[in-house]
């Protein structure tokens, strides 16, 4: 563990800040992710998770602060920083008039890979994620889970050092979900680093060794899974930090018909 803390963090966010009109979406957020770890980013809806990840991946320019990937500043030297990252965005359209295989090839070539690498990895990724049969179908005709999987394949194809995944398992069936978990575990074991956002506590507890909790644009907790949990279940701890919304006995009383 000591060598990990001594090495520079793979991802370092410093004072990130973003305001949309009157709403402060991300407020002076700083976070370090050491190499070879998997960080789960948790937070209620509208907490600023996606905004933070967009500022990390170069999609949204922060009002203040910046993100460092392996010592490269995303906003000073975007091309070098982006080469180190693989990104699965959430809620963003894909170039969905391409087939799955075409989209993978396109992503690989945009990443500057050689054609031979692109072709062999495309085949392997489609096979591993169970998309081989759908390789010739337009992505616009994919189901939500299949889109997640092809998005993940696009994020993986150039063998990045850091993976940034927004809701990676949403709408994915349990079989493919297990495949993705295996892929991510192997990736971390091989020295890769993962940042994933999720609403599923079970996923974070079983997969991640570090957890960060964000609410209203601020970092509420950050540390190893056991530090953050502090003896509670992650669900309880999350609710106690974010503030549970307890329904009184009178609310929705008419629903209790029997």
């Amino acid at each position, binding site marked *: 563990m000591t060598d990990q803390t001594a090495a520079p963090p793979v991802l370092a966010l410093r004072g990130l800040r973003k305001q949309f009109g009157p709403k402060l979406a991300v407020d002076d957020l700083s976070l370090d992710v050491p190499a070879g770890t998997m960080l789960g980013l948790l937070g209620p809806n509208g907490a600023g998770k996606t905004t933070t990840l967009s500022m990390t*991946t*170069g*999609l*949204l*320019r922060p009002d203040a602060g910046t993100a460092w990937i392996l010592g490269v500043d995303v906003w000073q030297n*975007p*091309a070098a*920083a*982006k*080469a180190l*990252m693989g*990104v699965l*965005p959430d809620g*963003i*359209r*894909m*170039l*969905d*008039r*391409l*087939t799955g*295989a*075409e989209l993978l*090839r*396109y*992503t690989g*070539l*945009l*990443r*500057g890979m*050689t*054609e031979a690498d*692109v072709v062999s990895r495309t085949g392997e990724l489609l096979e591993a994620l169970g998309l081989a049969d759908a390789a*010739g*179908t*337009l992505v*616009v*005709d994919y189901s939500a889970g299949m889109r997640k999987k092809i998005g993940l394949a*696009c994020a993986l194809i150039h063998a990045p050092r850091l993976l940034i995944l927004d809701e990676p398992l949403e709408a994915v069936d349990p079989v493919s979900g297990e495949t993705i978990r295996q892929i991510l575990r192997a990736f971390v074991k091989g020295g890769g680093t993962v940042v994933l956002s999720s609403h599923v506590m079970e996923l974070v507890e079983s997969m991640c060794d570090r957890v960060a909790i964000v609410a209203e644009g601020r970092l509420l907790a950050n540390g190893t899974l056991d530090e953050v949990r502090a003896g509670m279940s992650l669900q309880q701890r999350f609710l106690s930090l974010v503030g549970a919304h307890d329904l009184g006995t009178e609310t929705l009383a008419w629903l209790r018909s029997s």
Partner: protein
Amino acid sequence: MVALLVSLRWRQLGHQLARNPWMIVTLIITGLMALGFLAVLAAGLLAMRFAAPETAVTVLVLTGALITAGWWIGSLLVSADDTLAAERFSLLPVTARQLLPGMVIAGATTIGGLGTTLALALMLLGWSVNGLALVVGVLIIPLALAICVLGARVISGLLARWLARRRSRDLVMTIGVLLAASSGLLINLVLAAVREMGDVGPAFAGAADVLGWTPLAAAFGVPASIVAGDIGAAGVRLLIALATVAVLWFASQALLAARLVAPIQSGGGGRVRSGGIIDRMLPATPIGAIAARSLRYFRRDPRQVVNVVMMLFLPAILIGVVFMNGLQEDSIGFGPVVTLVPAIDALLAGTIMQMALAYDNDALALHIHTGVRGTADRLGRLLGFGVIAVPLLLVLCVASCVLAGRPDLLPGSLGAALGLGAISAGAGAWVGSFLPGRAPAPEANPFGRGSSGGVQSLIAMAVMSPITLILGAPALGFAIAAFWTPALGWVSLACGLVIGAAAVWGGAELGGRVLDRRWPQVLAEVSSEA
């Protein structure tokens, strides 16, 4: 239930307008055009009412048939985003019998429905030649409106399963945009044909009489028969119209009932040919990949298919215009001007390149987080477009020179077309990097929402046009001079190729630098809703 559905439709329209100010502009422009049409209709009817009452009746029946046909065919174009689609009610405990009256009245009180009602009311001007016809004219307004709305429901309902396939939706949308784009020429052609035919009165009267017996115009045939003094025929036509309403009513009720329990889900078109040739032909680099992707999108994205088809259509339209004017003034005839038609067509390149980023919408994020260089993006898109545009322009130039009977003008024709095309494409590549404009979202119906490129595209046009004209002046000027001194065509070709190549390179380089600096802002602009 009726009031609920009608207010639901209007509230949804209101929310859409509040969210998207450009839609208000589109709506106002459409409204003004509709008012203009109604004013022409009113003036024409008024004039005919006094000058030639019998002709007025013919025109009324034909207009009525046109309006009805417009509703029935138009239903295909707007069915893609029906705010009161049956599927939305399939989880609620309602029956088709309960829903249908409200849906029909909601359909009749849309903007189109109100305009139609107004048009039908204006028709009373024409019916006023005869007192009884006027009274009957009032009574058939609801009848005619019901046939319009119910017929549209039945047709879109019958074709709903076919339209649910992505490929058929794309096809309908492409044909619709093309019809809208070439409607001016079509109307001119029809009018010219009518003028050529000379006395067409009897033919029209005959057509009106036949249509008056069909569901399309039976309602309008009733007062027409009364004006003609044939009460018996009027009665039979009234029965036909009433029977039409009844049949359409029960048909749409059955269709609605079926869709409530078996909702139609929009589906895909299955596998596509992957076109490996494109990949083999273009280099396996970011530029080559972007070019290959642009080529695939020109074929698979209906919004961009329209652009390419427009490039094929515009010369036909322009040559049609030259041809029609040539007919009227024989002295001009097919002039050497025809050889410059491809050059005008090539100007479309500017807008197509300028809008390229907007069509990607937020999918553009892929280019950003993969770290593609701006210049690679610009060059890739230019290359992809060039693979289509250059051969197209070559064929057009040869064809236009053959058509004009002046093969000696080919160098000038090529110089002007390739030069202006490359220059405007280069200008578009640069301007599009900071004024990308806005395109309808990939899944949106170009007819359903405001599809204007917005103010940005107008400003972009104002920036690109002078650049294209100044840089293109040598190629165009020598091409025109070649009409008298054909040898100058070669100078035009040289100018076009050299300046064109420089413009493409300059546009890609300058535009690329802007993109490298402004990627996140460009993404925000092309993906914003309003």
